[in-house]
């Protein structure tokens, strides 16, 4: 594979607009995504075998038409089914080609990382059981296969995405039995008024809430899921309202979602050798419209850098999107701590290695003043296959409750690394560009 001027990782709104902008400027671009076609999580295209369902409000569908035209117009082509394994200490990007089971190393002058956002899911007793998934995970499955999960579904957590999923499940023919929302946006009229300043968000809110109401899905606000248990081949979910009212739901599936955060796990960043910047939701989770603008901005920064010109100023639109997202976050802010300090000891924190809240408490009690790195190594948190994707934020929050260390960042547990995700040794030792590299024995 030829070394490109710029490597763009990700084919969501930010990656598409970055790749198109760079190509239009005449730079050589290697544009990769782990999927075989552009779209990202928001514009995930159905797999060839399934039927497409038109999802989302008009603003989302319009963006996809616009982005699609943009990359087709510039002629930039996506190298699909290619994972970004990271940057090594020589500044080389290691790429994993899933279809051929090989890796390749490329040296780019600049790298734009546009790998989007990931969901946050808070620990709850029983959240590791089969039948529990994330709302985003269920959404992707729905978009790819066109069919909903079978059996009763409960959607629970925090933030507008739970309503979007409920709408999509209803459209696919299996509306959830309820949506449980930890916050109570109806009790925050001043924030609701502030939302009016963003007509697009109002449009999206109306789109989803009217559909949820039309499908007669109960939207229960001020509810927290406090336990999930296996019960007669299904899941029994216990929820508690702010006033202490307990309600249980028997379902086959529960989709959890507690907001999103930039997908920065293990990612490098830096000004030198190569110039690496982040764009879109993986820089700041502001949503798809902001990501499109941010991707273009990142491309312009790279172009300026490679031409030795001064860096362009940030786009003013990003400030407006940030204010709108802040308003939305205030509207949906749950009462109390995000990760409750009183979780039972046997609640799983690290699902990869089966480490519990109690394990963390024991470690903290035995080692006063312990550093996040020691918590990682000796507690084996953020050490498993997911490398902290699921537990680092939650462990960091509990460390802060512990009180001695002050603010703790999840990065202190996950760090910058390669491989960013576990990678098959068979692929790593087979270099796609080197016919003499190791072959199967």
């Amino acid at each position, binding site marked *: 594979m030829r070394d490109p001027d710029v490597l763009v990782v990700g084919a969501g709104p930010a990656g598409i607009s970055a790749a198109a902008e760079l190509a239009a400027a005449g730079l050589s671009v290697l544009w990769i995504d782990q999927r075989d076609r552009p779209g990202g999580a928001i514009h995930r295209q159905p797999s060839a075998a399934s039927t497409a369902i038109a999802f989302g409000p008009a603003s989302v569908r319009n963006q996809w038409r616009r982005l699609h035209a943009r990359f087709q117009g510039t002629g930039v082509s996506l190298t699909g089914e290619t994972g970004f394994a990271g940057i090594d200490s020589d500044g080389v990007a290691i790429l994993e080609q899933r279809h051929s089971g090989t890796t390749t190393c490329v040296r780019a002058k600049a790298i734009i990382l546009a790998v989007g956002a990931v969901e946050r899911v808070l620990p709850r007793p029983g959240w590791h059981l089969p039948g529990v998934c994330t709302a985003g995970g269920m959404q992707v499955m729905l978009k790819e296969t066109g069919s909903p999960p079978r059996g009763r579904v409960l959607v629970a957590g925090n933030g507008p995405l739970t309503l979007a999923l409920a709408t999509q499940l209803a459209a696919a023919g299996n509306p959830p039995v309820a949506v449980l929302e930890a916050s109570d946006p109806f009790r925050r009229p001043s924030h609701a008024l502030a939302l009016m300043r963003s007509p697009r968000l109002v449009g999206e809110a109306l789109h989803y809430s009217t559909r949820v109401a039309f499908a007669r899905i109960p939207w229960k606000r001020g509810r927290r899921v406090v336990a999930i248990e296996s019960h007669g081949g299904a899941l029994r979910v216990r929820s508690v309202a702010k006033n202490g009212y307990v309600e249980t739901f028997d379902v086959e599936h529960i989709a959890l979602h507690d907001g999103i955060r930039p997908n920065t796990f293990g990612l490098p960043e830096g000004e030198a050798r190569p110039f690496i910047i982040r764009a879109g939701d993986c820089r700041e989770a502001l949503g798809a419209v902001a990501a499109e603008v941010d991707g273009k901005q990142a491309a312009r920064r790279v172009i300026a850098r490679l031409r030795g010109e001064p860096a362009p100023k940030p786009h003013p639109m990003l400030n407006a999107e940030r204010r709108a997202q802040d308003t939305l976050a205030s509207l949906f802010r749950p009462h109390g701590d995000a990760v409750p300090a009183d979780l039972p000891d046997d609640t799983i924190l690290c699902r990869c290695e089966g480490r519990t809240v109690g394990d963390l408490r024991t470690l903290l009690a035995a080692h006063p003043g312990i550093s996040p790195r020691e918590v990682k190594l000796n507690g084996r948190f953020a050490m498993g296959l997911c490398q902290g994707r699921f537990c680092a934020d939650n462990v960091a929050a509990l460390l802060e409750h512990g009180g001695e260390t002050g603010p703790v960042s999840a990065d202190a547990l996950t760090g910058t690394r390669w491989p960013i995700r*576990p990678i098959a*040794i068979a692929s790593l030792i087979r270099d796609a560009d080197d016919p003499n590299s190791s072959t199967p024995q």
Partner: protein
Amino acid sequence: MAVTRKLRAAIVGAGIVGAASAYFLSRAGFAVQMLDAAAPASGATGSADGAVSVASKRPGPMMEAAIRGVETYRDLHGAGIFEGVFKERSTFMLAQDAAEDAVLEAHAVALSGNGVELRLHREDALHRTVQNLSRAIRSAIEVRGEGHAIGYEVTSRLIAASGATVARGCRVNGFRTASRSGSLDALETSAGTIEADLVVLAAGGGSASLLGLASALRPRKGQLLVTERAPALNAGIRGSLMSCRYLMSKDSTETRMTGSGRRFGLVVDPLRTGQFLIGGTREETAERGTDADAVRRLLVEAVALVPRLREVRLLRTFAGVRTATADGRPLIGRVRGFDNVLVATGFEGDGICLGPLTGKIVSQLARGEPTAIDLSPFDPARFATQEQAA
């Protein structure tokens, strides 16, 4: 009535050597304060290969020290301190061709001459003893009674058992000399003055600036890899696998150097967790990154030893920077010019193996007892041409 107070020991550096010193000094009656510029096991200890092994040592003081080092692990394991963190296992040193076979046989003679328990496995017998090995491996010597210990786990255990307090993020700015000539009575640190009757310097490369030993101590990097858990494959491999070329890599006269000035010596160690540790490089740098060239080369060699490693995923790559000395032997002993300052550093890749033993020796020196091994080969004064500590 006379009130006797406990003697106070201040230990600079909370790696495995500092932690073991804390453990043995506190058992000897000292009140121990540890300090570290970062946190326990944040240096070489936290990114070591964890071999508690005599197998690769050349005859001489390092082989003798390693034999005592492994014994100390067994003692502490027996005492319950290392329960669950020390995995007893053999080391298999493997030969692939006639030349390697010859190196291996000579090495076996040296090891058994020092009383190390060995078994020689050839051809089919070898493949019955160690499953999943490549058929290209012709013979192996099995060094029994060795083990593996993860540096940060051992360090954490020793600190907890010592009851010592640890000041994290605490830097030493200088020493305060006592009115009595030839002794220190306090450390001036970023966290204030720490008074002490005994000072132990076990700060790896950080010891160099404290002692003015910058020319004797040098950083040496080693890259290491850890796989995901592969319990079935792991269970069939009864011990650490070491290419007998490792002996050549450790030998400074041997030239398996690449253009970048680094040497490779392959070790595949089946860990207690079902994971594999694969190492490693030796590089003359203090930079802590890992690179695709080195990682690929280690993996190609590892797969050549154990073909089924192809089916396993690589989870982590990391590098440790060890403190090496010019002659390959650590510094253990009194610091010239002071009667109450001890140094223990420069272990390079042997800190995990020798750390607990060294802690015991530090305590023996502090109490004026005979030491577990002859310390003359490790005398810090052999590099004492440089100026005294600031």
